[in-house]
């Protein structure tokens, strides 16, 4: 029986503010799970702390709501022990690039086959709107007493240099585009990062839905409103590293596009490189039967509750007659 969108929903009361961009991201995740027909029990959503962190409770699959900034470490642990799980990590920009920035960089170096979706609202939502690492220098959202004194980090560029092998950007009000992007990220072999632009109407009065729609961004000639976002794929951009020779060129192109902001904000797949071995492949080079026999599959006791591991050979090397 085919799984329907409704199967991925829980009846947990959703307490996000009306108009929050998180709703669109939640729907997109559920839709992509349905599109991919991933059985509910085969998916695990790991979430950070924050408004975005509540996402796990709204999705009907295994849901692990972790600690602030640590979601990637939790998620990698589960995936490495049970590579059959479809692991999605989700969280805010504060969790991902503030308190958890070290884990972000290190996750890139590992390239564990899973997806990380970062809800980018440029503020710390759940703690009432302080500046997140993605808020631009000098911006003063209504929640801030003073303009932002820190420069912002470029999530796409950071993901690239950290080693993420799939990098994309979505927008929470373009659910259809986002759900396809998520599906691509899930299907990618390696660690995928999605930077999802998410208006927070309560605290961020700068990067609002209207701002992204470009209500203040008129074409001088036509007098028509121009949306700030555009789709990379519609401009003929190709982020896929087809062969390793192309790597430098493709990386440069990612940095270039990731610097676009203001009246031109690219969405879509910035980068995809399947030439880098996944962490699972790296483990397999040391543990040859890892794929068939990962930790979660191994039994450790016999029917009498005796251990089935024997270290006799090891112990024998410690004997005098050895």
């Amino acid at each position: 029986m085919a799984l329907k969108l409704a199967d991925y929903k829980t009846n947990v009361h959703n307490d996000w503010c009306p108009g929050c961009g998180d709703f669109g991201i939640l729907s997109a995740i559920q839709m992509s799970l349905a599109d991919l027909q991933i059985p509910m029990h085969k998916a695990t959503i790991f979430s950070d702390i924050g408004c975005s962190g509540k996402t796990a409770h709204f999705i009907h699959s295994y849901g692990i709501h972790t600690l602030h900034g640590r979601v990637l470490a939790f998620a990698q642990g589960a995936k490495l022990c049970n590579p059959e799980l479809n692991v999605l990590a989700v969280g805010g920009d504060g969790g991902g690039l503030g308190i958890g920035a070290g884990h972000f960089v290190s996750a890139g170096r590992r390239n564990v086959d899973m997806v990380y979706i970062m809800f980018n609202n440029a503020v710390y939502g759940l703690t009432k709107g302080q500046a997140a690492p993605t808020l631009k220098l000098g911006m003063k959202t209504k929640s801030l007493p003073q303009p932002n004194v820190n420069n912002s980090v470029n999530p796409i560029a950071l993901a690239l240099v950290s080693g993420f092998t799939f990098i994309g950007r979505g927008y929470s009000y373009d659910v259809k585009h986002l759900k396809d992007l998520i599906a691509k990220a899930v299907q990618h072999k390696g660690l995928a990062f999605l930077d999802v632009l998410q208006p927070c109407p309560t605290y961020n009065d700068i990067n609002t839905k209207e701002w992204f729609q470009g209500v203040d961004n008129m074409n001088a000639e036509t007098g028509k409103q121009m949306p700030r976002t555009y789709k990379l794929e519609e401009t003929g951009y190709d982020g896929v590293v087809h062969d390793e020779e192309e790597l430098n060129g493709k990386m440069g192109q990612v940095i270039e596009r990731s610097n676009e902001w203001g009246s031109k904000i690219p969405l879509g797949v910035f980068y995809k490189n399947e030439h880098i071995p996944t962490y699972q492949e790296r483990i397999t080079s040391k543990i040859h039967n890892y794929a068939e026999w990962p930790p979660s599959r191994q039994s450790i006791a016999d029917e009498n509750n005796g251990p089935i591991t024997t270290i006799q050979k090891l112990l024998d090397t410690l004997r005098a007659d050895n």
Partner: protein
Amino acid sequence: MLVGAKNFANSLTWMIGGAQGSGVDSAANIFSRACFQGGLHIFGNREYYSNIKGEHSYFAVRVSEDPIRSHLDDINILVSFDAETIFRHADKVTSGGAIIYDSDLSSTTLQEVPTIDEPAAKRIRELLEKSENPITVNGMVNFAKNNGAVLYDIPYFGILKQFSVEINEPALSKLTRMINVMALSASMAILGFDKEILAKAIKVIFKAKPKIADGNVLAANYAYEYVKSRFDLSQSQFKLSCKPQSADIILVQGNQSSAMGKLVAGCRFQTYYPITPASDDSEFLESNQIVEQTDGKKGSMVVVQTEDEIAAITMAIGGALTGVRSGTATSGPGFSLMAEALGWAGMNEVPLVVSLYQRAGPSTGLPTRHEQADLRFAIHAGHGEFPRIVFASGDIEESFYDSVKAFNFAERYQMPVIHMLDKLIANSVMTCKYFDQSRVAIDRGKLLQILPPSVEVGAAGHYLRFKFEESPVSSRIPLGTENGIFWNSGDEHTEEGHITEDPFIRNKMMDKRLSKLDLALEEISDEDKAVSYGQLDPSLALTVIGWGSTKGAILDALDELALEGKRVHFVQVRLMNPFPTALLERMLFNTKILVDIEMNYSSQLGSLVNQYLHRDSEYRIVKYNGRPMSTSEIYNALMSIINGNAPRRIVLEHGT
């Protein structure tokens, strides 16, 4: 004063010192291995600075025909090839003991040894000035000679030159790397140790490099013969005679025993961030990650070096959620970083084992030195109230079996277990009974691998991971199990695992989680709670109480006291949380003089006894200078207590 009352034949303390990186460890390993192969028991302890090359390190090995568990203050055989070792240790060599030193360094002055820090230099200078000796190596060995030590001056360079001619190897620099083995071999000649067994031990230690092994055997033989021909050895008081070693004795490094336990326990995922003295545990596992199984299959463990200890513990928790036995190993600074996640594991009832290899704190403290000062911290780490088991091993052998128990407790009670170990255990080596895997049982508690589709569900139609029922321990399923979706949250949660702030559910969940500790206290066997050694002597009515690795020195000191007719009772506490109050009350029932012995400043176990048993210790013996307690120190302290002339708090200060 204890001078080895238990002075059996074949019983001595041998020590080698030298700059870090100059082969002190391998020489000591060869010596330990040789004695072990020669049928003897050994206990060896490595002391070193937080430094890679150049600072002073030393390795003391105590040898005996009977099992021994600790070191003594005095040295019988001091082996050196640098000046610093002489300056730092020669005064501790006993009468009749031997000192092997480089005669080319005789005139080296104290000032010429830059690695001797000023406080130590001052003590040495004062010692030599007071005894009217020159402040040189010569002065120091003369001081020792006046104490009765026998001197063996060896011109290493000259011997090397002769040796290079003999083996036709003109590159002297290659040969200087073997001075450590030559020095060791010189001591073996003095001890009359079997040369063949020594050669075998060298080959075992350099097993991976047969060529180097052969070279070292030649060098050892050369030095051995040199000493035999040059000195009159008939006078030397200390001899080691070999016999066959029994097949059920093994020689174990303390940084491997707990890790071996983890393999047997079925731990299949370990994470770590490098830190002394804990990383050896993980590195050993990584080197042995493919394991043999009785069913003929090969098991394996995934070991991940993480970006920090926060990632180490949270990644291990992620692994544990898939039903895999998962652990992480760390020391104080790393454990401090783990506190928040420890609470998450407690809140979400995740079985997890943290091996906490204590070292001297606070902060980075004495990074490579010993202490037991994290007991209170292990019991309380993390905000809020959540259950955890704190379980302390007393020695290398215990740490093997305890590792398995730690995983059993973690799964049975679905909570984090902190397995307390320390620098002394990690950096010592000793002969133990062959580890008996058949004594080990695996208890996975209420872990279900499959769920029937008709599983009982909650109002929302979901499996109840945190079900309220008679037992506070709910059934547990791995992530990915069909029919069994659940949620976890560090927020207070419902039976399904969804966030709630309901005051009534909050109470029930707190009761559920924390009452698991009562259950653990009920079910955990007495021998895992506390062990009583010897019996209370009604006339003395003196009980020593301690925990962790002071066990060895305490037991050895008690043996020595028994030889003098003083019978002292010892209680080793193993389960530190939940605290085994009732059992300890029984064990201490008739005790009039309670002596608490710990490697920390504030007598942390003593304070727990006070808190739970409402009982003060009459005496507290503490040590916090980073050097482990010796049998000699404990013997002397207890003797002064028995003689009624001890202060209530005795601070032990021995150590170099």
